[in-house]
């Protein structure tokens, strides 16, 4: 072997040793220390902010869920159960994979552009459905009432929130389907509307799972 080959080997050996030592620090000690602190101080949050109803875990306050009717024969996408507040459409990963609507096991967006024919169709259909589903006797939803989040999919496919406007236009439907007074459902939405953090961070929102848990309580009480 000549000198340069020996030097290269020596250098690579140093590189490997550096990598192994730094792996120990940043790949073993670091995540374990952070996990220790996290589990010790923020146990609930570190494990996914689980949320309970009637003493049972019903999900995470950070992750959206689907509120659909069971699949009928021949159906590919289930219909929404209109008794419950509905979240945003989640058209998932499109052609690259199966549509994993609100399934935590695979997150993702549609990645469709603004001029994509599929997306235009989805938005049109969603808008028509939102108008139809939420218009009940004595209350008609106008196209201009429908906010953008009601007809578009989120980035994660797991968006836990909807805009207060989208919650608002669902109030009459929810009252109607569950035989509740509109004013009580309206109050429920108002109570669950979260403003911007410190008044300016993010957007006002309503957590759909928390809202539906409260709705369930309301139904039980009436």
């Amino acid at each position, binding site marked *: 072997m000549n000198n340069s080959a020996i030097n290269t080997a020596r*250098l*690579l050996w*140093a*590189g490997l*040793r*550096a*990598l192994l030592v*730094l792996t120990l*620090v*940043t*790949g073993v000690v*670091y*995540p374990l*220390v*952070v996990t220790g*602190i*996290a589990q010790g*101080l923020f146990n609930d949050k*570190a*494990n996914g*902010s689980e949320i309970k*109803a009637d003493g049972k875990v*019903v999900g995470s306050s*950070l992750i959206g*869920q689907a*509120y659909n009717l*069971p699949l009928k024969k021949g159906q590919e996408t*289930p219909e929404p159960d209109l008794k*419950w507040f509905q979240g*945003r459409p989640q058209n998932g990963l499109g052609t690259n994979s199966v549509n994993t609507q609100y399934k*935590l096991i*695979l*997150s*993702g967006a*549609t*990645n*469709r*552009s*603004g001029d994509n024919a599929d997306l*235009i169709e989805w*938005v049109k259909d969603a808008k028509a459905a939102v108008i139809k589903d939420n218009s009940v006797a004595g209350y008609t939803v106008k196209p201009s009432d*429908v*906010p*953008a*989040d009601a007809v*578009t999919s*989120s*980035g994660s496919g*797991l*968006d836990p*929130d909807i*805009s207060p406007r989208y919650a608002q236009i669902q109030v009459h439907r929810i009252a109607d389907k569950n035989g509740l007074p509109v004013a009580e459902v309206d109050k429920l939405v108002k109570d669950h509307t979260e403003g*911007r*953090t410190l008044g*300016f*961070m*993010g*957007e006002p*929102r309503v957590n759909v799972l928390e809202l*539906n848990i409260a709705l369930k309580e309301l139904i039980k009480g009436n």
Partner: protein
Amino acid sequence: MGPVLAGVLQLLALIGALALCYIPLGNYMAKVYTSDKHWRVEKWIYKGIGANPDTEMRWPAYLRGVLAFSAVGVLFLYLLQRIQGSLPGSLGFKAIDPDQAFNTAASFVTNTNWQSYYGEQAMGHVVQTAGLAVQNFVSAAVGIAVAVALVRGFARSRTGELGNFWSDLVRGTIRILVPGAVIAAVVLVACGAIQNFSGIHEVGQFFNGHSMGGSQQWNGGAVASQEAIKELGTNGGGYFNANSAHPFENPTPFTNLFEIFLLLVIPFALTRTFGILVGSVKQGYAILATMATIWLGFTALMMWTEFAHHGPAFQIAGGAMEGKETRFGVGGSSIFAVATTLTSTGAVDSFHSSFTGLGGGITMLSMMLGEIAPGGTGSGLYGILIMAIIAVFIAGLMVGRTPEYLGKKIGTREIKLAACYILITPALVLIFTAFAMALPTPANSMTNSGAHGFGEILYAYTSAANNNGSAFAGLNADTQWFNSTLGLAMLLGRFLPMVFVLALAGSLAEQKPVPVTAGTLRTEKPLFTGLLVGAILIITGLTYFPALALGPLAEGLAS
């Protein structure tokens, strides 16, 4: 308050937070790379490596260190993925295929973090924490090391010595990135990011279609620890496929701003470190002003186009909310998108493919600038210093004087190296894109058609060669063609520029300083900042205009 005003206030809060950290962090980092003392833990590490941290290296030795460490990194990460099936804590995931394992190894070692796999469906605990997250730290530390070596080239005279690579690598990791990441990770967990090792497990759900109750599958993992360094080291590889749009990675509007802060803080503060090391903090301010001008300008443009929501689907919907999370809205998503593409991060809190045509174009142009405003950890600083050399060269041509920068003559050799640096990335982007478009099969990977379909491929190579890592993610990049060519583009786009930077550093360090005279271009003045901004925009614009015109400009102007 309207969403536009809220967006502007979030931007102002971000500026405030970055300004508060600028001086203390910049000073601290300057101390890290000049101090004579070694921490005890560092001494152990040097013993483990078998390297003397006090040996000065000339540029070829420094470069060999960078290349050897990175080559070993690629190989190690490749093998770790290939044997995943037999590793403990792999959650039942199998070995990654060779082409994808190569792509991912190249991606994380080059600080790109392009991902052709679905995080939650491919990588177990060991690969995520001991493989991917480790490169999140060390690739960032390598970037800062090379930047510091270049700065030493300016600061030192009549020597070829640029410092010790092992020492710079270890100090960057131990003294800057690890403490920063620990703090950041704890903040993220406190806000709701998860940090556990429970893997895939069943959790109750509210309503399963038939009745109340039922269960759903969750992915547990060391998410917060990875998220923290993913942003702080401008890496960007998400634990989950949805990256920072996933509520377990980025749970609240506050964490969204905090993550943007993390990915900007080191690149901006390094201009202070630079100023201190070259003996004039004003020189650092001039570079900072250049970066900030571009960053704020691009953010304003992005907010304008996203709030205006042109594009048929967005017009019908009444807003550009496709691919965006309710809690962040258009404002928070726009700020994130610009910050992540102007740095070499590539994390996303919203999906760029579903931005407006012009918005998507801004994310591409941000990367095409060469990741310099403020750029990646370290790579942003050396990238913009190369542009500064080009700018003084242009100014020198105008007045017919030999250009100088920071007391060093910019001669033929220096200009050749700087020119090679700025040519290599565009060459990679445009040549690979041309081949992908000319060949019959790569286009099958497109999700969208027309200008946006072309945009998916242009975006992919722009992202890879500039080491960004974000995507127009409709592109199915898990094919042998894309895995191998994008992997190659990442490696060449990372290490060839480093060769030119270190060679340049070596030749600058050997020079004797030129005294400042009345004829010297004052590079700490606003005039120079203006010249530099102009040079950056014109050079990038001229290089990429035809490609941009076929993709995002065509899409944006048609809607």
